């Protein structure tokens, strides 16, 4: 799907996730501004072995809807994939919500690296509490927004979280989404080596530690909410690794013991809250 020799950084989680798109038949990608724009290829070259429609930030889902409606009207078989980062999900949230509410026949993938990486690591609504970014130099003061939970409350046809640390689980979820119709949403946790300040070979390890520490929960909803096999055991706190293990990233080096305990408390709350829907 994504051809080698592309512009992604070393150890890029987005590129890793983009490779998984090959499980989807007849894809047409809609990509707003973000790292994915650059990774997908600079003019006059494209790195994707699929059609790509590059669009401005907040238009992503609406353009995807337009393509999907037109293909249906013109009798063209297609799987329109709106592929975006957490930045586009922030600025385009009204369009995302409307698309889900309309049940547009679109697969939405948010590769969430928890900040605006393409413009130089500014805080997003997904940025973790206390994480350092260039616009939260002392650590972000607000909570991160739980995007996938919001999409779940839209009762979309399919909602899943995934992680580049569990690529087979991610591929399975993309395949499942590709074989369904309706509004499908996949939220991929995508640890970013330069943005989070960890070595490029650690992308998978950091992603897995997020899941193993309980900081990123793997689940899916297709009418019923279930924890995914790959991460279900971390529902039990005693199975989790110490959170400090996951937080060994440049953006969290300033955290105190108390901060870490506070994050742990927030994570416990997140689990409790999510499991009410299952």
């Amino acid at each position, binding site marked *: 799907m994504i051809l080698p020799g592309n512009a992604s950084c070393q150890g890029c989680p987005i590129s890793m996730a983009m490779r998984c798109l090959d499980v989807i038949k007849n894809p047409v990608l809609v990509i707003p501004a973000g790292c994915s724009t650059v990774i997908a290829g600079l003019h006059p070259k494209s790195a994707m072995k699929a*059609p790509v429609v590059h669009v401005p930030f907040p*238009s992503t889902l609406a353009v995807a809807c337009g393509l999907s409606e037109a293909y249906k009207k013109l009798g063209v078989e297609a799987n329109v994939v709106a592929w975006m980062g957490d930045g586009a999900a922030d600025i385009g949230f009204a369009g995302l919500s409307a698309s889900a509410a*309309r049940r547009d026949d679109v697969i939405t993938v948010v590769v969430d690296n928890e900040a605006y990486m393409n413009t130089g690591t500014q805080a997003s609504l997904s940025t973790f509490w206390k994480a350092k970014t260039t616009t939260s130099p002392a650590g972000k003061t607000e909570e991160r927004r739980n995007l996938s939970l919001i999409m779940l409350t839209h009762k979309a046809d399919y909602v899943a979280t995934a992680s580049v640390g569990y690529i087979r689980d991610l591929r399975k979820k993309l395949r499942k989404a590709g074989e369904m119709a309706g509004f499908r949403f996949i939220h991929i946790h995508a640890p970013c080596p330069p943005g989070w300040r960890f070595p490029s070979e650690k992308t998978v390890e950091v992603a897995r530690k997020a899941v193993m520490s309980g900081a990123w929960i793997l689940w899916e909803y297709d009418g019923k909410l279930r924890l995914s096999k790959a991460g279900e055991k971390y529902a039990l706190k005693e199975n989790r690794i110490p959170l400090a293990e996951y937080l060994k990233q440049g953006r969290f080096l300033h955290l105190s013991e108390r901060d870490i305990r506070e994050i742990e408390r927030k994570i416990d709350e997140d689990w409790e809250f999510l499991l009410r829907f299952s």
Partner: protein
Amino acid sequence: MRAEGNRNGSGVKRLLTSNEAIAEAVKIAKPDVIAAYPITPQSPIVEKLAEMVESGELDASFVRVESEHSAMAVIHGAATAGARVFTATSSHGLAYMFEMCWWIAGSRLPAVMAVATRSIGAPWNIHGDHTDIMSLRDAGWIIGMAESAQEAFDMTLQAFAVSEVVNIPFAVGIDAFTMSHTAEIVEIRNAKLPERRQAYRILPGMEVAVNAVTMGEARMKARYDLAIDLEKSAEVIERTDGEFGSYGGLVEKYRLEDAEYAVVMAGGWCGDAKDAIDMLRDEGVRIGMLRLRFIRPFPEKAVKELPSEVLVVDRANTGIKGILGMETAACGVEVKNVVAGIGGLDVGIDDFYRLFGKFVDGKLEKVEWLI
């Protein structure tokens, strides 16, 4: 009482507002995808289209979006896939979709949008002027301005025909309320449009990206091509004029042949101004009007042929000047410029009569505001 006045023409006669006339034209054009967000005074256009889709009169996908930004984005996507598309907006709606207006033009996608031209706040005002549609000038759209419900109907059909030949989106302007909500007699002509055509479409299986990040001269080249093609669209507009009513192409020349004095205007208030011109003509004043039917491409040739005394009456300003005043002056024509009718301020025949009289008497300042 009986009259025969409106019996000419072959199509069915109906009493329609410009909003309704546009909806009827769109129905004939058979778009595949329509997307819209309501805004006064455009809403009746898309309400009518929604009704037509609901009743099966029109086989189109009608997408109810949450904003004008998304309305333009939906038709952008649908046009990319090869669909015939339509939307409508006004004022703040146009401002909100502005970014996407640039994208659909830059992508060279044919599309048609009706703009019920309305003031942009602040302060709040829902009434007519041309401030919204004039903001579209730089985006790379063809911009037409109708004067009557009949012309709104004809121009909407022509818009599809022209846009799909030149691969440039086309906005049809109608004045808020004085046109959008005013019912007039419209002949529903039996126009037939060719099948949808466009320079490219994006389909599954293609290994191609559209609008990837450019470096070097590609963006400048794209912008230059669009500018040139927009200028050249004048030929297509002139050529197709007769197929959709006969108006004279980019401009309508009213009593201009022997005129010493010329008034340059656009939009729905030109009718009142024409009545005022007739009054002055009856008094022996050789005055006429150049009605700009198009703002883009700008009718430079016709403007350059104007007599030496020119008054441009504007319903939108840039700084202290009127926008059309500035555009006309940029063609090398010496102009007097009046800004009037902002925020729906009514300008009637008597007002035009007095204004034109002052112009003919040489008593107008270079730029004046009719407040």
